[in-house]
């Protein structure tokens, strides 16, 4: 049986809000005075609510009562919105800061990559920086010497290895930094969004490396990213952190589904509040996605048939009736590229809004998206004259499963974004 290599028990982390430097001496004296009388710290009781938005207290719990066991060889993806506490958790694990309460026990050598190329000195050469960076990450000099050649080769900077790092392009610096990290001897690896900085080829290399490492060396990896595609490909299990609390633990697919499910569908209020582009004379109030049978959908499958229902509300009734309505539903991938769009432009009949509110319906047949994570944006306007409302990436969706090709092919997840069917044959009777 594999043992747990990280055990997190009742861990909380409190941060003080506001300008740290203002009045701290007074606070410190207050605190010392309270301690002297045996009273609890007056400042830790203020911020007991863990809502990040609540500004009533001087303190905030970035993490609250986290309990987690991580097994050897597990690749854990950590998901959560901005400010949910993901990075705080990684910082606690990598000992950059310490918890306010609770304890963390670990087994084995931990290397944390909160940044690539930490401690590079611009005046030193690439070779000198490899030693410096490796030592900062906890390697002994002889360990670095042992794999120096591999590092240089992996980085692809062999030609420039004796040039000061300040002459490197930023991409080369990142490659060099990652090359050092990739050759570290460790049991537990903590990675925080470092993949976000490099170009596509570099990201692919990093991902390949992580998969290889986990498969061959039984390393435990903790990985934070906002790119759900990457998380899904690399990780085996996942957790969701929400408002400083552990909201969900499970295998990676169910975690992502849960995360996306929490983040959007049929939340009318969020659509009304969200600031869109456009003049706002007509507002989109709701977007629903249903399958062919009319049931609400939280995820889509390639090849499926879907109905999009866009509810709208007209603000300025003088405009009615509005003819030449243009509506669009746009799918973008995790990098922000539009991969698919459906539009009223492609239909022949002219749509007109006659009443102050109603629903625009679109039928989409045979969804040609490859499995992955996408966002939906919606657009509402009048021909090309004006934009009423435009909601950018309001709805994250998760495309998976299905049988687009009719032969159980998984559908090129991560290799492409759209799918189409094709016929193939070989004719080798004659030379062309």
């Amino acid at each position, binding site marked *: 049986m594999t*043992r*747990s290599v990280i*055990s997190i*028990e009742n861990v909380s982390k409190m*941060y*003080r809000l506001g300008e*740290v*430097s203002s009045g*701290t*001496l007074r606070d410190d004296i207050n605190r010392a005075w309270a301690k002297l009388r045996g009273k609890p710290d007056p400042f830790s009781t203020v911020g007991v609510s863990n809502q990040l938005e609540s500004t009533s207290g001087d303190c905030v719990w970035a993490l609250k009562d986290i*309990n987690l*066991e991580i097994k050897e060889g597990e690749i854990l993806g950590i998901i959560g919105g901005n400010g949910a506490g993901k990075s705080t958790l990684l*910082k*606690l*694990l*990598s*000992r*950059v*800061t*310490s*918890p*306010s*309460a*609770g*304890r*963390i*026990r*670990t*087994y*084995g*050598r*931990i290397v*944390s990559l*909160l*940044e690539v190329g*930490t*401690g590079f*000195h611009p*005046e*030193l050469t690439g070779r*000198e920086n490899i*030693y*410096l960076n490796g*030592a*900062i*990450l*906890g*390697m*002994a*000099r002889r360990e670095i010497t042992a794999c120096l050649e591999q590092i240089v080769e992996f980085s692809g900077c062999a030609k420039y290895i004796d040039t*000061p790092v300040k002459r490197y392009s930023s991409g080369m610096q990142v490659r060099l930094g990652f090359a050092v990290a990739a050759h570290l001897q460790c049991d537990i690896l903590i990675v925080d969004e470092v993949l976000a900085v490099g170009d596509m080829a570099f990201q692919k290399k990093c991902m390949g490396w992580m998969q290889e490492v986990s498969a061959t060396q039984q390393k435990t990896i903790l990985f934070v990213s906002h790119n759900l595609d990457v998380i899904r490909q690399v990780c085996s299990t996942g957790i969701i952190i929400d408002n400083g609390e552990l909201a969900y633990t499970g295998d990676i697919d169910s975690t992502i589904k849960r995360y996306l499910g929490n983040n959007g569908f049929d939340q009318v209020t969020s659509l009304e509040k969200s600031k869109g582009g456009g003049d706002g004379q007509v507002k989109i109030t709701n977007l629903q996605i249903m399958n062919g049978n009319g049931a609400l959908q939280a995820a889509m499958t390639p090849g499926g048939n879907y109905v999009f229902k866009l509810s709208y509300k007209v603000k300025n009734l003088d405009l009615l009736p509005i003819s030449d309505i243009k509506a669009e539903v746009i799918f973008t991938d995790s990098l922000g590229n539009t991969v698919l769009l459906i539009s009223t432009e492609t239909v022949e009949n002219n749509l007109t809004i006659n009443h102050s509110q109603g629903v625009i319906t679109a039928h989409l047949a045979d969804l040609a998206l490859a499995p992955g994570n996408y966002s939906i944006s919606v657009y509402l306007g009048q021909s090309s004259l004006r934009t009423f409302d435009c909601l950018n990436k309001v709805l994250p969706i998760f495309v998976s499963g299905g049988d687009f090709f009719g032969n159980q092919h998984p559908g090129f997840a991560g290799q492409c974004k759209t799918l189409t069917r094709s016929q193939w044959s070989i004719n080798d009777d004659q030379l062309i």
Partner: protein
Amino acid sequence: MNNTPAEEWTQEITAQRGLLSLPLKEIWRYRDLLLLFVKRDFVAFYKQTVLGPLWFIIQPVLTTLMFTLVFGNIAGLSTDGLPDILFYLAGVTVWGYFSECLTKTSTTFSDNAHLFGKIYFPRMISPLAVIASNLMKFGIQFCIFLAVVLFYWMKGAIQPNSSVLLLPYLILLMAAISLGIGLIFSSMTAKYRDLRFLLSFGVQLLMYATPVIYPMSAIPAKYAAYIQLNPITPIIEMFRYSFLGVGDASSAGILYASIFAALVLSLGMIIFNRVEVNFMDSV
């Protein structure tokens, strides 16, 4: 949660750390990093300069010449009958080491905030590296001093004696005192930035309360006790006595400096150790 107590863990992170649990073992494990930091500081210092490591020498030499001109010739302060240049060079070399160590270690956290915020290594490595790289600098400057001493010794102007063997101990004392005070200040500067200004300016003032530009023998009796309270005073006087043959050296003074060094270093380490775990939250 199934906690099998039989399982062993290599590391435990909790909210509080013991008062005296200095991570000495860990510091030893990271000794290569210390060496690399020293190398980095040394190499980065003279990269892209024409004169290179010569700058380590130019600074004390020019200071000495200026002191000779201003304090020796214009103000006419006593130098215990020693050649002016030699007298001031001794003071400048020793004081330079102490003040550099002190000011640099006291900004450990703010200087390394970008590193400390991203990665863990024993924080003590950084101030130790400062002490070590300044020791190299001191070594170069000391060579100049030694050359001047030899020159005057040949001429018969001075008589060095066997107490020169105390030199390593004197350096150790200065390193310990500056490290101790530096650690205390660095632990508190991130929270109270005021201390940084207090220190940089305090070090300048402290030089005048140390027999750098005047000998102890020139001090009126009613002030002498205060100057003697300064733990650097007996160190400089002993240094001058051993290399130049004249100075107000006493074993009691060295004993006082040793006790002071031991106390301030322990206090500094304890405070630093307490503070380092959560330091990044307040920088």
